[in-house]
């Protein structure tokens, strides 16, 4: 650890934090962080230029030594600064921990809610957008869980 701290001082070690409103999901060293930001997939290595962007619904992959951590996320924000990558998302879950049934239920619930939105609701567009966002996030959980567990 002492060695790593020293490396951090010299700016040679990349760190990553994945943070949600409830808790910090990942906080540690990383060799490579891959996320889908506003203009496509971005891989961040050590000494990356400072950058702020949005994160799209999808997955964040963190490679550290020989391990790979994959988190399915909602949309949110992305920041690289001084060798610290910060992913701020409302929801993030390790693909190993996704409850596929629960996620599928959420998709169905969102679909049902969409069909029940009243035609006259004053902020109809906003409500629909919000539900669709939840739906996309849940669909992403299902997709990510299937993809990484089978292969």
């Amino acid at each position, binding site marked *: 650890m002492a060695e790593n701290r020293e490396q951090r001082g010299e700016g040679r070690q990349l760190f990553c934090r994945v943070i949600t*409103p*409830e808790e910090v999901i990942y906080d540690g060293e990383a060799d490579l962080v891959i996320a889908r*930001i*506003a203009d496509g997939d971005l891989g961040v290595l050590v000494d990356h230029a400072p950058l*702020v962007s949005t994160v799209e619904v999808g997955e964040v992959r963190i490679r550290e030594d020989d391990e790979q951590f994959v988190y399915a996320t909602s949309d949110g924000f992305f*920041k690289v600064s001084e060798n610290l990558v910060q992913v701020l998302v*409302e929801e993030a879950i390790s693909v190993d921990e996704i409850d596929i049934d629960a996620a599928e239920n959420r998709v169905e619930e969102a679909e049902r809610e969409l069909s029940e939105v009243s035609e006259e609701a004053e902020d109809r567009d906003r409500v629909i957008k919000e539900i669709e966002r939840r739906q996309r996030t849940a669909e992403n959980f299902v997709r990510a869980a299937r993809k990484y567990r089978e292969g």
Partner: protein
Amino acid sequence: MPSARDLQRQINTVKNQARVFSALQTVSSVKFRKAEARVKRARPYAENVEEMMRDVARSASGDLPLLAGREVQRVAVCTLTADRGLAGGFNAQVLRRTVSLRDEKDRGALQVASGRKAVAFFRFRRVELAEVFTGFTDNPSYEQAREIGRALTRLFEDEEADEVYLVYNRFESALNQRPVVKRLLPVAPEEDDDEDSGTSYMEYVPDAETVLKRLVPRYVETMVWQALLESAAGEHGARMTAMKNATDNANDLVRDLTLQMNKARQAQITQEILEIVSGAEALSAG
């Protein structure tokens, strides 16, 4: 002077009360520990969103209405209290702070209330409530923060209010919760401290305005979310402390009453002995 029997009855009543207070204290301390852990776990997100908001607001040149202030004619105030009482000054102090803010900014300010205590307070004073949120203050979810945040943003966007303030208890410890006022909207960039961010180069993808557009609603939600968590932890802490004090007071009272009762009983016995002795003396003298 009350009789020994009356005092005994009073002691039993106070003892029962002490038992109830102590049970409430136990319940609150369990809830408090959970809420405290939760607010601490959640702080990094709020801090980072706030920091990002500051950075982006400084770099963005667009005139997004949520960011740029306009002339202030009408103010909206959102007050967070608990749903329930028995928490010492917890609810009263945040309501007092709200009243002084209203006096200072706009007596006719639009009022939004979260928590039954706030609702009751403003209804009693015939202050009309623009929005009401209840039923979750001791264990809030992000969904509720989103709802409140959206309602507040809408008040600003529809130009019903030109400034939106949030008043809540910031959790410091179980003994201490401080009522604070935070201006949510407009999100004006701070002018003073640009020594670090002002000079450092930051690239925005695709550009600062786009990031900002998405960030502002999330920022408002996040600030409400953090306030809800702070308030929930404060509520449990305040109730725990209030119930501890109540238990201690009740126990002190039991001690005092027991002493009084013993005195009364002793006096009664002395009285009886005196009566017997003087009766016996009267007989022997006769």
